[in-house]
């Protein structure tokens, strides 16, 4: 056959004539590719139904032994139907609808699905038994990395590509009164009842259509489906999400829903806060364990019925059916109607069993317990159900195992109030009983939601106080009729076969694990990996538990299950991530910086100019002329009230009682463990009005810190704190000519040194902008003014400074120049020159800390630090070879490589033409003049000398006082 010869490829050999419940659109045909060949499908087909219609039976190879695998459940869980679609791995092809042009491939098969060389693993199976890798590759130790590389080659999965585009995924929130999980009859009926009782309902269905199992039922079932679907549609209080799945239930009914198949979005995570959660996922049909149970052609009754009724695909030609329930019997009828020859029906209710299926690449014959052997290409099993209680368990409920019905059943006594189970998961019964039950549950869910809403709304400040009070909710619980439980034989295994199809774990592996001492279900799980694959136990848990129970001689109830956890169905990372909401912050001058080639620096949320090309030149201009820097990110808190001075005295280590209006002061805050927290200056603008500045990175923390002390320790103090960091654009005008520059633009402030001295604050007009705050301070050690001006005018003033100062040679400078300038001046940076354990005295704050104050935050620890002595100290250092700049974090060592400190800041000083540093050293080395050894990252040692001051430029502070 030639590539692309679609006519032959599609075949449609197994496609039946029109079926009453079919979901395919026969009027249209689309084309897609399977392992390189073209196939045809109808819209509405899943990938697998289209392939099955074309007569394909093998879709994958198994995890360990590379056994051929086909269709088992024909839904999302189908372990043999995980395929690669384009660049998307592990696509659930029995759920995913075919799209035109899809490129579908089988995973981890080489050279092809038909002839897979790794199938030799199957022959070696007896040596690859469970846990084999713990028992081998132990010696010689040096070969293990090579073994490991080989093991990794065997990973059974799809592939990701480095070129995959990050598509558009997003999220939304929803606040329904009632969330209904599952759109089968139970879910639909509960949703309608809840909506009619006044609740806003969100109804979520994993499949593409509402209806649940009714979709593949008889005429009556389909009629009921249509009726319920119509009721749902006409109920305005119900929002329906199909092709969407409830993936997890978290504290306080916080529920994740994955919404797929949307027009604008690849996938959307809906985050739901539901007042009531109704769990209506139906039942999952359980596979039967016997030898050969994984052969293509062995399938569940629901799979066969889906194929026939939904997709009009004939599942095989000649079938054996193992039936233990009415659904199995219905499957027999469906098969007959579809023209499948029924070779035999083994009725498990009468003790008949299948013990083995034989065949190469697919079922060829089946052996029954009575020894008979029947030729066939299809074996359909209907041996019972697993209750997918996952969401209930996540909510803290404890479903109990009931042997007479051979499944776990929810226990309302151990289910939280906000969660109700309904439908097949809760019990059996006629469709009428089911609807009656669902109706009661829906109304009860609405009632509980209303009650909760009433309670919560009482606490909400957002509703008008004079509005009519919410009607008190109905209080009497709706009586919920019991659903009967239909007896069902316990059918878990007859001979050894596969239990976890995805993980290639057999019942024999489980028994072996138990014998080796892994004798609880949790240890068995981890030793064998049963239930750890893509279905997460929905298909395999009960069989696993039953086999462990048998092997240990305990009952299933005693054995218990492993823990159910989210995700109920796997969720793409894209959907979980959604749009990236990472706030960023810009100063008003940002457009100017961008226009003038500033190199951006990401500093927390702020984007700042690191430099404008040449930081050393920027430094030189500040030292010789004038420069301006955008320091808007500096934290600013507006403090007002009669008790501000008390607050400052409490939070800063130094004294604040006598700060005159118009003065500013530097202060350091420590935490109660004496560790340096933040520093900055605070100025007094009026009687009861102060402006506090903090470090840029500490702004948010300091605000919360201040509020904490005010709200919890001193609620009686009259202080109001307003964060005004970005209410002001902040510009530092620095350099010997800064006064001259500012003088040209300033009104209402006498800038002469005798009128506006160092450490003073004035308010006035700059470049026509009123209400500017000017502080005569600076980080650079030069004459400088920090102007805080109403932020909307930031760009205006900045541009005016640049224009007006052109003849003075004004330049903008960035964060890097500022770091150099401050290092020359010996100012430390909290968090760089200090760390999480640096207490006040270590940071060299001895003269600032006033232990004679009655109290301040950190005082006791600082007092003990002073008393104890012997602490490390922050010091200035000069490398003896001034050309060597030891990288920051270089270690200071003493004999034998003992660490005695480290360089915390280090730069080449453009002003001095040599390297300068700050560092922390052990107390014995802190004396000025001490020579220390610095180990450079390249292993060389260099000498450095401790200096008397932290500052290397103008230690006396002459320049800033002019």
């Amino acid at each position, binding site marked *: 056959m030639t590539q692309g010869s679609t006519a032959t490829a599609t075949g449609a050999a197994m496609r039946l004539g029109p079926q009453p419940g079919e979901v395919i659109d026969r009027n249209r045909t689309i084309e897609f590719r399977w392992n390189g060949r073209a196939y045809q499908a109808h819209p509405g087909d899943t990938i697998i139904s289209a392939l099955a219609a074309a007569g394909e039976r093998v879709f994958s190879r198994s995890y360990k032994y590379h056994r051929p695998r086909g269709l088992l459940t024909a839904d999302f869980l189908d372990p043999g139907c995980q395929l690669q679609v384009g660049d998307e791995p592990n696509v659930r092809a029995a759920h995913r609808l075919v799209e035109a042009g899809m490129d579908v491939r089988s995973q981890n098969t080489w050279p092809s699905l038909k002839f897979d060389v790794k199938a030799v693993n199957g022959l070696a199976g007896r040596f690859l038994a469970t846990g084999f890798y713990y028992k081998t590759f132990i010696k010689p130790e040096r070969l293990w990395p090579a073994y490991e590389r080989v093991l990794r080659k065997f990973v059974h999965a799809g592939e990701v590509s480095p070129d995959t585009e990050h598509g558009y995924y997003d999220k939304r929130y929803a606040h329904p009164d009632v969330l209904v999980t599952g759109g089968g009859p139970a879910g639909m009926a509960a949703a309608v009842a809840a909506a009619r009782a006044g609740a806003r309902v969100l109804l979520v269905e994993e499949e593409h259509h509402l209806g649940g199992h009714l979709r593949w039922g008889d005429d009556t079932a389909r009629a009921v489906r249509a009726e319920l679907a119509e009721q749902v549609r006409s109920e305005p209080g119900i929002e329906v999400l199909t092709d969407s799945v409830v993936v997890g239930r978290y504290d306080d009914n916080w529920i994740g829903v994955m919404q797929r198949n949307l027009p604008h979005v690849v996938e959307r995570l809906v985050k739901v806060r539901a007042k009531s959660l109704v769990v209506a996922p139906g039942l999952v049909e359980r596979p039967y364990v016997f030898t050969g149970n994984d052969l293509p052609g062995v399938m569940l009754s629901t799979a066969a019925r889906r194929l026939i009724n939904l997709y009009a695909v004939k599942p095989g030609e000649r079938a054996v059916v193992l039936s233990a329930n009415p659904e199995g019997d219905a499957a027999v009828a469906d098969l007959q109607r579809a023209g499948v020859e029924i070779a035999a029906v083994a009725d498990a209710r009468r003790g008949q069993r299948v013990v083995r299926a034989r065949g190469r690449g697919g079922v060829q014959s089946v052996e029954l317990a009575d020894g008979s052997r029947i030729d066939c290409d299809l074996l359909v099993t209907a041996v019972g159900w697993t209750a997918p209680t996952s969401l209930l368990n996540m909510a803290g409920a404890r479903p109990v195992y009931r042997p007479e019905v051979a499944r776990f059943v929810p226990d309302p006594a151990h289910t939280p109030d906000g969660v109700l189970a309904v439908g097949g998961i809760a019990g059996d019964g006629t469709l009428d009983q089911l609807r009656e039950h669902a109706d009661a549950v829906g109304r009860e869910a609405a009632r509980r939601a209303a009650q909760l809403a009433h309670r919560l709304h009482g606490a909400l400040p957002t509703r008008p106080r004079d509005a009519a009070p919410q009607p008190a909710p109905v209080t009497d619980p709706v009586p919920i009729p019991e659903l009967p439980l239909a007896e069902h034989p316990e059918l878990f295994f007859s001979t050894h076969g596969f239990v976890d199809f995805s993980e290639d774990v057999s019942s024999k592996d489980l028994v072996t694990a138990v014998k080796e001492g892994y004798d609880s279900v949790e240890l068995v799980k981890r030793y064998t990996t049963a239930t750890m694959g893509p279905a997460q136990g929905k298909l395999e848990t009960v069989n696993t538990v039953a086999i462990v129970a048998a092997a240990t001689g305990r009952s299933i109830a005693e054995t218990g299950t492993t823990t159910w956890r989210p995700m109920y169905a796997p969720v793409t990372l894209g959907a979980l991530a959604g749009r990236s909401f990472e706030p960023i912050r810009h100063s008003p001058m940002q457009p100017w910086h961008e226009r003038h080639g500033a190199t951006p620096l990401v500093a927390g949320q702020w984007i700042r100019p690191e430099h404008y090309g040449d930081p050393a030149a920027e430094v030189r201009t500040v030292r010789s002329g004038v420069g301006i820097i955008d320091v808007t990110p500096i934290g600013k808190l507006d403090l007002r009230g009669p008790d501000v001075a008390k607050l400052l005295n409490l939070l800063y280590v130094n004294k604040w009682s006598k700060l005159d209006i118009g003065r500013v002061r530097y202060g350091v805050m420590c935490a109660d463990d004496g560790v340096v927290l933040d520093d900055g200056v605070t100025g007094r603008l009026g009687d009861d009005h102060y402006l506090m500045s903090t470090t840029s990175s500490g702004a948010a923390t300091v605000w919360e810190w201040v509020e904490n002390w005010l709200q919890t320790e001193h609620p009686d103090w009259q202080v109001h704190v307003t964060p005004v960091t970005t209410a002001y654009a902040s510009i530092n005008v620095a350099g010997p000519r800064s006064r001259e520059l500012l003088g040209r633009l300033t009104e209402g402030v006498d800038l002469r040194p005798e009128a506006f001295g160092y450490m003073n604050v004035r308010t006035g007009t700059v470049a026509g902008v009123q209400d500017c705050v000017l502080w005569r301070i600076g980080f650079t050690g030069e004459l400088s003014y920090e102007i805080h001006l109403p932020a909307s005018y930031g760009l*205006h003033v900045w541009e005016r400074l640049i224009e007006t100062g052109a003849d003075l040679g004004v330049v903008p400078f960035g964060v890097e120049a500022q770091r150099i300038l401050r290092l020359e001046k010996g100012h430390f940076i909290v968090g760089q020159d200090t760390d999480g354990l640096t207490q006040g005295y270590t940071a060299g704050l001895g003269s600032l800390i006033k232990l004679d104050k009655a109290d301040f935050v950190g005082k006791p620890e600082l007092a003990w630090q002073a008393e104890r002595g012997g602490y490390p100290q922050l010091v200035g250092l000069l490398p003896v070879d001034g050309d060597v700049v030891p990288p920051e974090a270089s270690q200071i060592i003493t004999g034998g490589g003992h660490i005695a400190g480290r360089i915390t800041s280090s730069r080449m000083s453009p002003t001095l033409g040599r390297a300068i540093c700050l560092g922390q050293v052990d107390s014995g080395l802190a004396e000025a003049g001490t020579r220390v050894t610095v180990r450079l990252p390249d292993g060389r040692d260099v000498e450095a000398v401790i200096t008397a001051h932290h500052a290397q430029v103008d230690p006396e502070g002459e320049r800033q006082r002019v």
Partner: protein
Amino acid sequence: MSDADRSADGPTVTIARSPIAAPEPLVPHRGWEVSGRRSAAALTITDLTPLAKVAVRAPMDGAVQRALGAPFGRAARDGAPALDGTLVVGSGPGEWLVLAPVGTAGEVREQLAGIVTEAGEFGTVVDLTHGRALLRLRGEASADLLAKVCAVDLSDAVTPDGAAFRSSVANLVTDVVRDDAGGVRSYLLHCERSSGQYLAAALLDAGAEFGIDVDGFRDPGI
């Protein structure tokens, strides 16, 4: 205007700018540069940053609150006679935000200071016009848009017209006021100035599926 504001080419005027980039045409409006764009879309976003924004702090449930007419959690128009043409938002326990027409911050501040003095309580008034960004979303889909970025229940039962709350919007602390305009659902969003551009961009992105468009500033905006 001072001498300093005159250059050789004539007077330069101070220009106030919002942190949010404005689409053309840019037009001056009472000292601010605003967008003059007009949109007839069913869902629009408008930058209202130029409005006067004044914060008041005083005891909760005291005389100041009675004078302002809006308790925490609610917004009131013309709450007090002195505050005609403003929107008073009960933005926190003992905290109010007063929004007023462009250029009126000074007056409003004075009036509020008067109210506080009269009340005889410990209270303070801070002009935050330049410290915050303000946006308006308008259109029936505004709640659907907001539901993509804000976890608070936007139904009438919880946040009816006039509701005010502070919460996280696109991961940014934001004051939200439900302020239906002319019977159309509408929200005011108020955040730190420096993140205004970020918030506007996040809303435009979230609103794309609803056909959101930018509508320029129109007086009085409030």
